[in-house]
């Protein structure tokens, strides 16, 4: 029984790695006040770039680097268009979602269904021998370690460094940050790209580890949207976002098992189950933060809402609004 639990948890930690990377990256971007809506396309493009690079050079490290770069590049376009050209972040992000996806299919076509390099598990010396936690956390492949490191680093950076404070200040109140001597636009662009690099790593983690190889469909389609929803569900906090990603992976694994238990339910239902679940999670999140109206006004949030409020959080106050200096 204990062996089963270890196996289950380690498969969740491994399978959730790309979603953790993507949602932590997007959390960083949104904390600075910018929405990078292009995640679904970015992930596919970087998955393709990562796989093709690793396939042609034979180097996994180069594959991950190229994937990250692709994600950073798409994010840079979102950043420049929205921060400096004042275009709607949603508009640019949405166009890029479609364009990056089509670019991935266009350039990836010759590399479909090829066998390429894959990241294999590397136990961390010493730590891998710890009973239970060892195999779950330290007997994984490199992208999983990257996902764990990203969570810890993002949390530490956001809440325990002066630069993290500046990042959050820009997301909450760019004018005040500007008055304090920061350049909100430079900071926003910087963290949009930084978040994009993590999203790019998420794509490479798909094509080089979790769902190895390239194809149409690759299998990562739709996860960008899930990651975007997890950022909201996680209340714009990297650790909570990661927990949301693990919860999601747990539900996915459960779904696979339920499929064996109830073979009469068509497989399509299980395949799309994440999406109604996403809507439901957002409904819950909103219920937790909705201000009471009408007769209930002034009585504070209901106990259920307060309980949910522990799990979720409020968005950065200036999320999605460009900073105008005049």
């Amino acid at each position: 029984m204990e062996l089963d639990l270890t196996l289950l948890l380690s498969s969740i930690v491994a399978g959730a790695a790309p979603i953790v990377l993507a949602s932590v990256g997007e959390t960083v971007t949104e904390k600075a006040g910018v929405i990078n809506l292009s995640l679904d396309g970015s992930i596919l493009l970087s998955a393709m770039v990562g796989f093709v690079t690793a396939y042609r050079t034979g180097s996994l490290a180069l594959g991950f680097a190229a994937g990250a770069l692709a994600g950073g590049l798409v994010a840079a376009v979102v950043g420049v268009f929205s921060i400096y050209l004042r275009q709607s972040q949603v508009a640019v992000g949405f166009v890029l979602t479609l364009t990056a996806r089509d670019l991935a299919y266009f350039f990836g076509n010759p590399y479909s269904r090829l066998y390429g390099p894959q990241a294999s598990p590397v136990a961390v010396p010493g730590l891998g021998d710890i009973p239970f936690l060892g195999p779950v956390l330290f007997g994984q492949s490199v992208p999983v370690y990257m996902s764990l490191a990203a969570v810890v680093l993002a949390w530490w950076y956001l809440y325990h460094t002066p630069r993290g404070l500046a990042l959050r200040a820009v997301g909450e109140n760019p004018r005040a940050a500007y008055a304090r001597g920061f350049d909100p636009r430079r900071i926003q662009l910087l963290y949009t790209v930084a978040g994009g690099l993590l999203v790019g790593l998420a794509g490479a983690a798909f094509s080089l580890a979790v769902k190895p190889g390239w194809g149409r469909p690759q299998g990562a389609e739709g996860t960008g949207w899930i990651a975007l929803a997890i950022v909201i569900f996680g209340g714009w906090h990297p650790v909570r976002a990661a927990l949301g990603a693990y919860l999601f992976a747990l539900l996915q694994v459960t779904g696979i098992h339920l499929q064996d238990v109830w073979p009469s339910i068509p497989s399509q239902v299980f395949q799309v189950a994440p999406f109604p679940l996403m809507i439901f999670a957002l409904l819950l999140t909103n219920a937790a933060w909705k201000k009471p109206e009408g007769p209930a006004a002034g009585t504070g949030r209901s106990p259920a809402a307060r309980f949910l409020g522990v799990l979720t959080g409020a968005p950065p106050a200036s999320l999605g609004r460009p900073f105008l200096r005049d």
Partner: protein
Amino acid sequence: MDTERIRETAARTALTVTAVLGLLGVILLAAGAPPLEAVKHLFLGSLGSWMKIAHVLTAWIPLTLCACGLLYTFRIDLWNIGVEGQVMAGAICATAVLRMGAESPLPGLWLSAAFPAGVLGGGLWAWLAGVLKTRGGVNEIFAGLGLNFVAQAILLWLIFGPWKRPGIASMSGTKPFEPELWLPTLSGLRISPAGLVLSLAALVLTGWVLRKTRLGLALKAIGRNRRAAFLHGLDPSRYTLAAMGLAGGLAGLAGTFQVTAVYHRLIPAISSNYGYLALLVVMLSGFRAGPVPAIALFFACLNVGSIQLPMMLHIDSSLSGVAQGVLVLAFLFFHGRYRRKHVRQPGGGT
């Protein structure tokens, strides 16, 4: 003053087109394909014969219908990303009606009943996303997108389950309807006059409603300033649902057209990505009805022209999607530069 504006618009358009052609040239060269050859095949593949032109118009009809619907939702500042699912919902409802009329002595009756059914199906699917927003506070982007996946699942389940082709269920879709249940097409060409008339009517009607009616004014007022409109006595929730319903209804009509005039059955790819594409069309039109037909026609040409690219040049047909996306990005880029130069006050000119 006016000539200066025209000159500026012309200059911006020239810049946009040059940028798009340049970028596409680079992309094609990177893929190892000769750019001029590719343009030639795109042109011949879309406008090279009457058959191909008919094919382009067949793609233009659903694209225009979806774009018309999106004009309503954009007017009230909603991102209705759920068009794709609304097309599917409309197609499913239309198919349900046509299946009931399979062996009826009055096929014309069932065929005409399929249209309101499709409109209703699409409208209800959009309304659902609207309710999730107005009642549940779920952003319409996530609600619409989630419902797209749900609609796709229902579609696949129907094709592989209850509505499967006798014998074997397959990705090729349900059993085709009897020809009596097909929307009539011109002899020799697979183009439906009724479909063309419907989309033109939708265009004219949408332009009229948005510009000349109280509904259009209310949508615009709420879209521009939600709070002010609310204080003025307009209920944003009600108009949100109305706009969603209209958009979904038109998308459902597009789905019905796909079923009755194009495929004559339900297939997994019944929406053909037109929902997402229509969003790009409307963005490129500057959210106005006037330029929609021309842009939709150009996008339809790219889609149809790219079909033969894999055979002729061994490159993927997703080139059309890349071209469409790059075009919108270039438009936003130069438009953004224009606005930056001319509009100085915060939030102005949007």
